[in-house]
C-alpha cells in the first residue's frame, strides 16, 4: 500500500522503536493473545499492512463490503434497537411491548419493531397442557399456542407499520402461519407483513436439543425459503445465527467459519429446491456475537462481511449486490455476564454495544444486567435501552462509518481472522460440510473444547473475570429478580382447553391436518410440495401449535441427534 520511499522511512523509525523496546524490556517476548487465542503484538505499524490489498477493504457500500454494507450507515439510519423479550401470557408480553415502545424502541423509519421470544413449550411444539412441558410455560418466553393468542398479543397494532421477529425457534414457520392468518383476518394481506422468522433448524449443531434430524431440517428450511421468496418477497426468511457458536464457547474464528458453513449448506439446499441465489440470499440475515475483546470482535464482523460477499459472488454466482451484503443483527455477549456483582454487567454490555457500533451492525440487542439471574426487570430493560440511546446520541461514535478502518492493528487482525476462518471453513468442508459435521458431532465437540479451555483459563486465573475470580465483593447487594406471574401456567392450560372445546371448524381442521401430512411428505419427495400453504390452512382451521407440530414431527422425524 505504501510507496518505496515511505517504507524506507517506516523501516528507519521501526528500527529505532525496536531498539527502545529492547533497551526497556530486553528480549522477553510479550505473550499476548486475543481472547480467541490469536497471537498479537504490543504495537502495530505500517509494515503490518503493507501487503494488504485495498480492494478487499474498499469503501463502505462497495464489494466485498468489509467496511459496511451501505455507503452511508448510521448517518442515515441508526441501527435497529431490538431488545429480545417475551414471558407469560400474550397480555404480559404485550405490556412489555408497549413499555419498550414508550422507552423509545423503534425499528427502521416509522416502523415499530418487536423481537419476540416464545416459551420453550411452543418452541418445541407442545401445547401448554402437555405433560412434556416441564413446567416451562411462559417462563422464559411468551406462550403462543393458538390464533387467539395472536389477537391477545397484537390487537390494535397497525400491522403495516409493525415489524415482528417471531422467535418460536425451531417452529418459527408455525408462528408465521398464525401471523399470516391473523393479518388476513385484520384485512392485511401477507405481502404487506414485515418481519423475520428464525428458520434456524440447524440449531442442534451446538447442542443436543430435540430437533428435526439434519436431512429433514435442511429440506424444511429450504422449502420454507422457497415459498416465502415466491409469496412474501419482503419477509426476512432466515437468521444465520452464529451468536450461538460464540455463546457455546466458540472463538471468533470458529463463529465466522461456522456461520459461513451454515450459509453455504443452506444455499446449496435452496438451489436444490429450484431457487437461484439472488432469489433468496437478500432475505438472509445474521445474528452475530459482540464479545468482550473489542478489536477482535470488530475485526471478526468486518471479516464476516467480506467472506460472505466473496463466497456468494464467487462460489454461487450471485449477481444482485443484496445477495452479498450481510444484514447483521447482533447481540452483546451473554456468556460474559456474571451473577456476582450483576451491576458490573451494565459495563460489559455497554462495551459490547461499542463493538456493535464500531462494526456498523444493522441491529443490536443489548443484554440487560440481570440476565445471569433471570429474565430482565423493567428497570434492567430500561438501562439496556438507554445504553443504545447513549451510544447513539452522546458518544459521537456513529458519526463516522467504520472508524477503525486503516488502523494497523484492526486491518491486520481482520486479515488474520479472514485467513484463519477460511482455513477452518476449509476443514469443515473437507469433513463433508456443515450438515455432515452436525451429524457427526464434530462441530459440537470443537465448541465444547473451546468452552473447556475458556473455563479452564478462568479457573486457573489466567483469564480474569472481574467479580468472579478477582475483585470479588464481600458486600452482597441483593438484586431484584423478575418473577413471572405464577398463574401463567394455569391460565394457559385453562385457555387451551376452552379453545379446543369452543373453536368449531372440526371438519376443516381434520382436512387441513391431513393435507399438511401429505404436503410434508411432498417436501421430502424432492420438494414436490410446499408445506406453508397447508400450515396456513391449519391455522385458519384453528389448529393448535401441537396439532401442527405433531404432524410435522411424524413425517420429518424428531428427537436428539446425539
Amino acid at each position, binding site marked *: 500500500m505504501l510507496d518505496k520511499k515511505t517504507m524506507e522511512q517506516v523501516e528507519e523509525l521501526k528500527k529505532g522503536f525496536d531498539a527502545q523496546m529492547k533497551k526497556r524490556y530486553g528480549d522477553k517476548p510479550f505473550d499476548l493473545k486475543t481472547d480467541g487465542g490469536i497471537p498479537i503484538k504490543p504495537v502495530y505499524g505500517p509494515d503490518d499492512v503493507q501487503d494488504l490489498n485495498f480492494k478487499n477493504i474498499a469503501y463502505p457500500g462497495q464489494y466485498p463490503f468489509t467496511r459496511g454494507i451501505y455507503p452511508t450507515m448510521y448517518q442515515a439510519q441508526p441501527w435497529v434497537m431490538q431488545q429480545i423479550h417475551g414471558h407469560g401470557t400474550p397480555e404480559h408480553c404485550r405490556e412489555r411491548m408497549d413499555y419498550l415502545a414508550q422507552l423509545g424502541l423503534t425499528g427502521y423509519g416509522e416502523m415499530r419493531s418487536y423481537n419476540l421470544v416464545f416459551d420453550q413449550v411452543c418452541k418445541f411444539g407442545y401445547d401448554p397442557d402437555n405433560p412434556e412441558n416441564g413446567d416451562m410455560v411462559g417462563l422464559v418466553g411468551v406462550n403462543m399456542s393458538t390464533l387467539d393468542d395472536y389477537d391477545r398479543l397484537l390487537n390494535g397494532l397497525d400491522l403495516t407499520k409493525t415489524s415482528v421477529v417471531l422467535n418460536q425457534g425451531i417452529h418459527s414457520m408455525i408462528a408465521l402461519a398464525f401471523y399470516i392468518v391473523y393479518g388476513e383476518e385484520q384485512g392485511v394481506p401477507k405481502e404487506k407483513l414485515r418481519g423475520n422468522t428464525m428458520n434456524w433448524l440447524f440449531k442442534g449443531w451446538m447442542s443436543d436439543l430435540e430437533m428435526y434430524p439434519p436431512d429433514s431440517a435442511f429440506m424444511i428450511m429450504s422449502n420454507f425459503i422457497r415459498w416465502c421468496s415466491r409469496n412474501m418477497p419482503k419477509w426476512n426468511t432466515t437468521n444465520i445465527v452464529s451468536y450461538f457458536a460464540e455463546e*457455546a464457547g466458540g472463538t471468533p474464528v470458529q463463529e465466522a467459519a461456522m456461520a459461513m458453513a451454515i450459509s453455504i449448506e443452506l444455499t446449496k439446499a435452496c438451489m436444490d429446491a429450484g431457487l437461484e441465489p439472488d432469489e433468496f440470499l437478500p432475505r438472509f440475515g445474521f445474528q452475530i456475537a459482540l464479545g468482550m475483546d473489542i478489536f477482535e470482535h470488530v475485526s471478526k464482523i468486518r471479516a464476516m462481511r467480506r467472506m460472505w460477499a466473496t463466497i456468494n459472488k464467487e462460489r454461487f454466482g450471485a449477481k444482485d449486490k443484496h445477495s452479498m451484503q450481510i444484514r447483521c443483527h447482533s447481540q452483546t455477549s451473554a456468556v460474559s455476564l456474571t451473577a456476582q456483582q450483576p451491576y458490573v454487567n451494565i459495563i460489559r454490555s455497554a462495551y459490547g454495544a461499542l463493538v456493535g457500533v464500531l462494526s456498523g451492525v444493522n441491529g443490536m440487542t443489548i443484554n440487560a444486567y440481570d440476565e*445471569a439471574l433471570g429474565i430482565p426487570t423493567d428497570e434492567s430493560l430500561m438501562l439496556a435501552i438507554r445504553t443504545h440511546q447513549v451510544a447513539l446520541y452522546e458518544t459521537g461514535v456513529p458519526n463516522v462509518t467504520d472508524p477503525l478502518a486503516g488502523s494497523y492493528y484492526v486491518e491486520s487482525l481482520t486479515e488474520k481472522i479472514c485467513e484463519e476462518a477460511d482455513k477452518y471453513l476449509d476443514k469443515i468442508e473437507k469433513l463433508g460440510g456443515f450438515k455432515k459435521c452436525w451429524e457427526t458431532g464434530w462441530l459440537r465437540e470443537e465448541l465444547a473444547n473451546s468452552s473447556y479451555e475458556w473455563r479452564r483459563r478462568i479457573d486457573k486465573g489466567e483469564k480474569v473475570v472481574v467479580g468472579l475470580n478477582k475483585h470479588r465483593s464481600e458486600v452482597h447487594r441483593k438484586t431484584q429478580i423478575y418473577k413471572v406471574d405464577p398463574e401463567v401456567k394455569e391460565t394457559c392450560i385453562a385457555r387451551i382447553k376452552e379453545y379446543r372445546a369452543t373453536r368449531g371448524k372440526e371438519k376443516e381442521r381434520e382436512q387441513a391436518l391431513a393435507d399438511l401430512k401429505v404436503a410434508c411428505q411432498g417436501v421430502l419427495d424432492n420438494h414436490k410440495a410446499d408445506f406453508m400453504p397447508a400450515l396456513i390452512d391449519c391455522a385458519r382451521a384453528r389448529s393448535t401449535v401441537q396439532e401442527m407440530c405433531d404432524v410435522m414431527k411424524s413425517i420429518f422425524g424428531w428427537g436428539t441427534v446425539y
Partner: protein
Amino acid sequence: MLLSKSRMDVHDRGVRYLARCMLESGMEVILSRHGLIDEVANAALQEDVDVIGVSFSVGGHVAASERLRKLMQEKGIGEKLVIVGGIIPDDDIPALKKLDIDGVFGAGSSAAEAIEFINAKVNA
C-alpha cells in the same frame, strides 16, 4: 454420577464443562438429556448412581426438584445425593433445601466446588 439437562434447554455449556471436570477427577459420569424429570429418576435407578445432578437454565427447577424427590422416594432411592445447578435465583434456594436438594451450584460456581462437595458427602 448422573448429570442431566432438559432436551428443551439449550444452555448446556456449564453442565458439559462440569461433566468433563468430573471425569477428569476420576468420577464415573453419565451425561444425559431428559424430557420429563421422571426420566432422570428412572435412569438413576437403572444405573445405580450415587449422585444425581440436574442443570436448569430456563426455570422450572423448584417444581422439577419436588417431583424428582417424590419419585425417588417412591422408587426407594430417596437416600441418594441430589444437586442442582444453572440459573438458580438465591430466593429459590430455601425452597430447594426444603425439598432435600443437597447442594445448589448456581451461576459462577466452579466445577471444583461441586466435586469437592460430592466427594465430602459420598465418602462421609
